[in-house]
């Protein structure tokens, strides 16, 4: 039971990170980004590729130097920021202001495009994506906690706190103003374009963290984004697509409930949990948990 709980928190942290990334973009540019996890996966591939170059023998033997790892990960995150910014600037900016549904379709389309690119560049094989702490564990009684799990849960929490802080800063306030009303924000002298680019960049970094952490545990492959984006959207829904804290709690909740369902009902039913949860929230609390004062948007 305790073991499942920790596994649930670990998986929940991935979902929470993706969910928060979705919320950041939604808050700043009002786009429901279905390609969020796929964009993060690109960064994870880049980081892996660099690690493989820097520490060629190491990746195969699973022993990775700290320095190589830090450099590769940072590079991956920088690429993530650039990728998000470019996609915003080149693609989304032109069609900004469309309603949610066309933007959702647009990003569903983008998911397919990114998937093809990943397939062309890196191929279909799975790869080990080790971290310096891969395989290290602590034993607490009968329960086994891996360093990986602790770091994942820690990163999720840190991201939630930092993002929350960020939105309270003046730049964050600008973001919220843009989301609230583009035209008004512009007349207030806010650089709407810059806000959007930064928001997409930050969100993609957060998504990249989720994908890097997840692929360290489950290896790197094309399919990694699939399961995460659906659950990330569930987390975002629990946050009403506007509350970071809601999305964070939502992600953890989905993860923990999934693993508890596996333990007490059956591993068969595990993935139905997240899907049922969406319904419950949309029907009974469509504004989500911790919805801030932003009025719930209609399409």
């Amino acid at each position, binding site marked *: 039971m305790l073991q499942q709980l920790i596994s649930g928190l670990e998986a929940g942290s991935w979902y929470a990170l993706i969910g928060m990334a979705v919320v950041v973009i939604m808050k700043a540019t009002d786009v429901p980004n279905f390609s969020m996890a796929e964009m993060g996966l690109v960064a994870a591939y880049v980081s892996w590729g660099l690690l493989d170059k820097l520490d060629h023998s190491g990746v195969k033997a699973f022993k990775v130097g700290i320095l190589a790892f830090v450099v590769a990960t940072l590079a991956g995150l920088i690429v993530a920021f650039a990728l998000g910014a470019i996609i915003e600037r080149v693609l989304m900016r032109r069609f900004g202001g469309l309603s949610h549904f066309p933007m959702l379709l647009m990003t569903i389309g983008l998911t397919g495009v990114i998937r093809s690119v990943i397939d062309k560049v890196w191929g279909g094989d799975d790869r080990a994506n080790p971290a310096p702490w891969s395989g290290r564990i602590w034993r607490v009684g009968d329960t086994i906690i891996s360093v990986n799990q602790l770091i994942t849960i820690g990163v999720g929490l840190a991201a939630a706190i930092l993002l929350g802080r960020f939105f309270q800063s003046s730049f964050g306030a600008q973001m919220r103003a843009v989301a609230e009303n583009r035209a008004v924000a512009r007349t207030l002298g806010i650089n709407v374009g810059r806000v959007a680019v930064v928001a997409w960049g930050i969100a993609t970094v957060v998504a990249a963290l989720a994908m890097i952490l997840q692929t360290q545990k489950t290896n790197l492959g094309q*399919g990694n984004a699939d399961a995460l984006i659906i659950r990330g959207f569930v987390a975002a829904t629990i946050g009403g697509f506007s509350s970071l804290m809601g999305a964070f709690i939502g992600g953890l909740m989905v993860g923990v409930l999934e693993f508890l369902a*596996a333990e007490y009902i059956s591993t068969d039913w595990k993935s139905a949990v997240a899907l049922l949860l969406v319904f419950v929230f949309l029907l009974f609390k469509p504004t989500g948990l911790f919805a801030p004062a932003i009025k719930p948007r209609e399409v």
Partner: protein
Amino acid sequence: MKLRTLVVAVVVPLALLAAACGESDEKKAESGPAATAAPGGATGTTKPDNTGVPGISDTTIKLGSTLPIVGTAATAGVGLRDGIKLAVDEINAAGGIDGRKVETVVLDDGFDVNRLVSNVQKLVNEDKVYAIVAPAGSQALPGTYDFIKSSRTPMWGPVSPPDPKIEPVFILAATRTAQLRVAIDYMGSKGVKKLAVIGQNNTLGAEAKAAAEAQAPKNGMTIVAQETVEVQSKDVTAAVNKVLSSGADGIVMGVDNAQAALVQNQINQAGKRGSIIVATDSGAGGPGGDNTTKLCEPNACEGFIGAMQAELTTSDVAQVAKVRDLSQKANMAQGGLNFILQSYAYTTAFFEVLKKMNGNYKYENFYKTAEAIDYDSGILPKIKCGALPEGHSCGAGAGLAEFKAGKWTVVQKFTVPK
């Protein structure tokens, strides 16, 4: 009322015309070989009459296959394609079969059902192939059985489906269930008492479960856990947590390569490696290759048991060494060498059948000859088919290999389950 009249006005003429329309070319094709069978055609003096037999001309024999050449299963698809090519090049260099050169049509299905179905139909209807050899159409292959049964197109050596027990289909290697049964017997001999099953929620899982249910009682084991992982999912954690808390000392898996590695990583982290024997079928274990083991953390795959449908790719058996050399010379991707071996063996076995048909390629002659085949490819267990209802699983035995000190070692030669 008006509406109903209109519907009737449109549909009834259509239906009538449909009923009245003439015989289709397919029906002709179906009745073709039988109708045109020349009496006494296959006697020693006259040349056998192969008119109406699809894919056979005086100078060529056309074979087809459909494989996942791109996408998630590309390694397998490309390997299988290359193996077919090696065998075909070899026989053509030796003058073909009965003076006929072998031609192949290999289509890509990208692991997609609708494309697989239309590929099989294209091979039969448009390319008019004689037989479909070593197709690996994911789990959707059974969807084409009804069709190939009616078109009477032999399907020789489909890769790892359960045996459908229908006339045109011949399974050449041990099914997943048979492989895992052999593995469970081995676990029994090593003293395993509590068996757990981890399977995908599809055919793979169902076959692992069937193997456990058939073989556990024979080895005095109890099944202590049966857990599910989702297809293409990387999330095996919940299932492994449950298996570990069930106290199992043996695990059989019906999963994919990535999942097989992840399960072992987690068992290793829990410090249970060595006290639990983990076994999979040849597909998920990839014995001989590193499809699975390269995804394991250091040492996590030590002691891993993979069933073998064919000799290891590292084996020094003459036939294996030959194929290995040929494939290297042809610059074929060595990651799929086990698949190259497999389809090479399937294809040469098929040529063996064709050679024994003495130039009479009629369908009836094919399946009779195929059922009587007794052929040792040097790569697979001996191929012996026999008649239906039992006989189309032609290679019943499976071997076992263990991953030890970073490489695969054979621990048990080809055996049949208890």
